[in-house]
């Protein structure tokens, strides 16, 4: 995506390493880089999260607003994604440089969250056909160090997990207009069910092999990457006793897209999809654990802030 200059010999070095399943930073082809995740970092947002994946830095804030549902989907709320690439993220983002990339990512997220099986918009309904919640998910790309899609999807899921929606105490219908009474207490709120929210896994085709979590250098060696969106397992996002009540979960693809100017053979595509679904499963489990631990810390008031906002 965001390119940088590499000499041909550097490219060959990366390519040969990948062929031997040994990447320039010591990882194997299916390893992710270490991440830092922190939730509840922006006090004015309903939910927020900051994710740092090696050099990639993402801040996500979720705002809630009351809106009118779409006429053809009266019992569903709305969710909208906005991506903003900071001009500091990489030199190419100066001016309007990051706009197209931002558009691509927000389109991809919109598609990944489109299916009800990925994110249930019914939980955002307030009064059927009249009022619903609209979630504005603002994604700020602070630094770009490769693998933006994965990082964005992780941060968005964490921010949604952290999002609180005020309880509606009463809804009165008065001559076609709805009169809502919201609870005054900010802690009197409900959490969203985001267990099924999808994670995106980028598989970068370099040489004959696909790698997950490409660094910026690796991205510039590849002409094509495949993004697979896989729905999460709700079991990973709740306590053990709740998890036992849930049905067995099958991971599903909620979106697949290709990035970059190249093309792939059908067989490579098949393998990559399988690889992506597997990778997403592990990623989802790890994220669930981290988020549950974080929530525990917040409720016990033992949370330490590590980020630059506090």
């Amino acid at each position, binding site marked *: 995506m965001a390119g940088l200059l590499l000499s041909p010999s550097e490219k060959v070095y990366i390519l040969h390493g990948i062929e031997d399943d040994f990447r320039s930073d010591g990882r194997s082809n299916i390893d992710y880089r270490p991440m830092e995740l922190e939730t509840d970092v922006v006090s004015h947002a309903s939910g927020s999260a900051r994710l740092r994946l090696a050099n990639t830095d993402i801040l996500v804030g979720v705002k809630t607003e009351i809106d009118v549902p779409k*006429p*053809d989907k*009266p019992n569903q709320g709305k969710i909208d994604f906005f991506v903003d690439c900071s001009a500091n993220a990489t030199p190419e983002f100066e001016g309007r440089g990051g706009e197209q990339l931002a*558009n*691509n990512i927000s*389109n991809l997220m*919109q*598609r990944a969250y*489109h*299916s*009800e*099986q*990925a994110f249930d918009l019914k939980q955002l309904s307030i009064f059927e056909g009249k009022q619903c919640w609209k979630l504005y998910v603002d994604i700020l790309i602070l630094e770009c160090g490769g693998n933006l899609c994965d990082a964005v999807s992780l941060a968005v899921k964490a921010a949604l997990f952290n999002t609180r929606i005020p309880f509606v105490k009463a809804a009165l219908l008065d001559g076609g207009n709805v009169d809502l009474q919201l609870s005054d207490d900010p802690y009197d709120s409900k959490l969203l069910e985001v267990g099924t929210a999808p994670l995106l896994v980028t598989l970068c085709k370099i040489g004959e092999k696909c790698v997950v979590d490409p660094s910026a250098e690796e991205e510039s060696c590849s002409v094509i990457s*495949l993004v697979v969106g896989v*729905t999460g397992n709700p079991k990973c996002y709740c306590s053990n006793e709740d998890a036992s009540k849930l049905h067995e979960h*099958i*991971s*599903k*693809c*909620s*979106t*697949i*897209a*290709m*990035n970059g*100017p*190249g*093309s*792939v*053979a*059908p067989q490579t*595509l*098949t393998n990559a*999809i*399988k690889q992506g*679904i597997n990778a997403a499963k592990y990623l989802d489990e790890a994220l669930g654990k981290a988020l549950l631990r974080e929530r525990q810390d917040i409720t016990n008031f033992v949370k330490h802030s590590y980020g630059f906002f506090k």
Partner: protein
Amino acid sequence: MPLDYRRFNGPEDSVSYRRFTEDYTKDYKQFLDELIDENGRRKGGREMDEARTLCMFFARTGMISQAKGSSYIELKRTKVACSVFDPREIVHQNEYSTLGQLYCEVKFAPFSCRGERKALVPDSDERALSVALKKALEPAVCRHLFPNYQIDIFIYILENDGACLPAAINAAGLALSDAAVPMYDIITASSVAISGDKIFVDPTDDEEQLAIRNHDGVNHGVITMSMLPELQQVSDYRQIGSMDADCVLNALSILEKECKKIVPYVQRVLVQNAINSFEQQKKLEEEAKEREEALNAKMEVWKSILNVG
């Protein structure tokens, strides 16, 4: 939304009358019953795995006189026009780009969709389709042959009855070859809509709507794939909805077959195109010869007049 002062605007709060008709909201069952009859055939008499290519595919090139290359595709009711213009230098470009650029724009006619009227300013749907089209075409065009230049490809969807992205890709492929833009291979595209165990090949708008809906957690979604059939390469693969891995892989193999089925139709149009231009060339040459003969004859007359004088 700010008012568009360059166009005539209607009242702000106008809504389509279809919203007040009785069959505006249908549940899943009703929808499904309408689309498939008791024999398991689709509305309109097609089999589930029968694309519209076989009977209702209409394509031609040289549609738009002002463009370098153009094409028009009709998949029964889906109507798509495409035009391609001469490569032109990229304006406001700081760096020299070794590869030529493709500029793609997909636009829906305001009256092309069944529900609400489409606004005249581009919306997110159109932008997403433009990006998808660009992605699909880039691997097919020999972009290294026109560095620092861009080719404009415009798609206009006159009527949308499903499968408009594959139709747009097919149309753009034809228009590019009509414009004599060098390409590695013919590009073809196809799509499937999946809802539970039903797989609709080359879906109509209704079938797409059905597939986008979730019903009892079954697999659902729409997949579009474009291919360079001779080179065995997938140039774009795009999925929306939610389905498990087996379903995705099954769809992939169906789409691969469908993309290959379209090839002879595209080839036929291209061959016809070549024959036509060859004939026209011949006609032009004949006319030029006639004109020259006439001129020579006149010259002879003048010569004789001069000689006499």
